[in-house]
């Protein structure tokens, strides 16, 4: 049976992707909220425990008194540019911790961590084509 430490869970997709029995499911309200559900499982398998990036999962002996489903929900952090939710706060925190701080800003000094991947591409395209666009405006 899986035990979840909700304080450690990043709200990522690893365990739900990797579970061979679909005991772990996720639901996403596009741009708003993400919910992960761990069903009570009797399997002798610890793949999810092994692959959890946050070590938030542990296996405990099966018991009838515990709830059928454990649920953890996250509000998605809105992108600084388009304001649509794109990632959970623990995931972004993890990025801030693992990527050296000098790499967390672009050439103009702007931090990109709080910008969604879609807007990061838009900004990159805008920056890269600025000169060409200007020369063709005339």
């Amino acid at each position, binding site marked *: 049976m899986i035990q979840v430490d909700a304080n450690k869970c990043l709200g990522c997709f*690893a365990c739900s992707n990797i579970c061979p029995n679909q005991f772990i499911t996720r639901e996403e309200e596009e741009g708003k909220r993400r919910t992960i559900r761990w069903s009570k499982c009797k399997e002798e398998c610890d793949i999810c425990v092994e692959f959890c*990036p946050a070590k938030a999962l542990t296996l405990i002996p099966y018991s009838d008194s515990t709830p059928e489903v454990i649920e953890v929900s996250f509000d998605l952090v809105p992108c600084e540019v388009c304001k649509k939710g794109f990632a959970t706060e623990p*995931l972004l925190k993890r990025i801030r911790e693992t990527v050296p701080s000098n*790499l967390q800003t672009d050439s103009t000094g702007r931090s*990109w961590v709080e910008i969604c991947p879609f807007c*990061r*591409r838009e900004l990159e*395209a805008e920056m890269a*084509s600025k000169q060409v666009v200007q020369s063709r405006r005339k």
Partner: protein
Amino acid sequence: MMRVYVDINRCIGCRSCEVACKRVHGGKGHVNVHISEDRASVPLFCHHCEEAACTMACYSGALTKDGERTSFSLDKCTGCGLCRLACPFGVVWTDKLAHKCDLCAPNETPTCVLTCPAQALSNDYELALKRARARAGRATILGGKR
């Protein structure tokens, strides 16, 4: 294995690189062409950064530096999505599992470079350099006009 250089002046926004990339990667493309004000277009894909943030965020060892290339091995990926959030340019995708530009390894020349009809993509550093110098020269002669 060489990096791909983009000449934005030459890009015609036809998206051939997008299509070619999808074709050789089982329907999952890693190039994204952006149009700026209907005046210019830019194909966006992995920069193969020297200090690649995606490899630092990846905890399972799926993303690693392999010489100049930032390489990805599908069998180690858990699809957590950390790399997607760690890429400053938004060019690592997660579609259940992650996927990104692999420079078409082990081929010598990436398919997008072979396909581009406008020769906006190349993996020849000398050519990219020569073009940039020629453009700067022309700009000087024409008094700043390109």
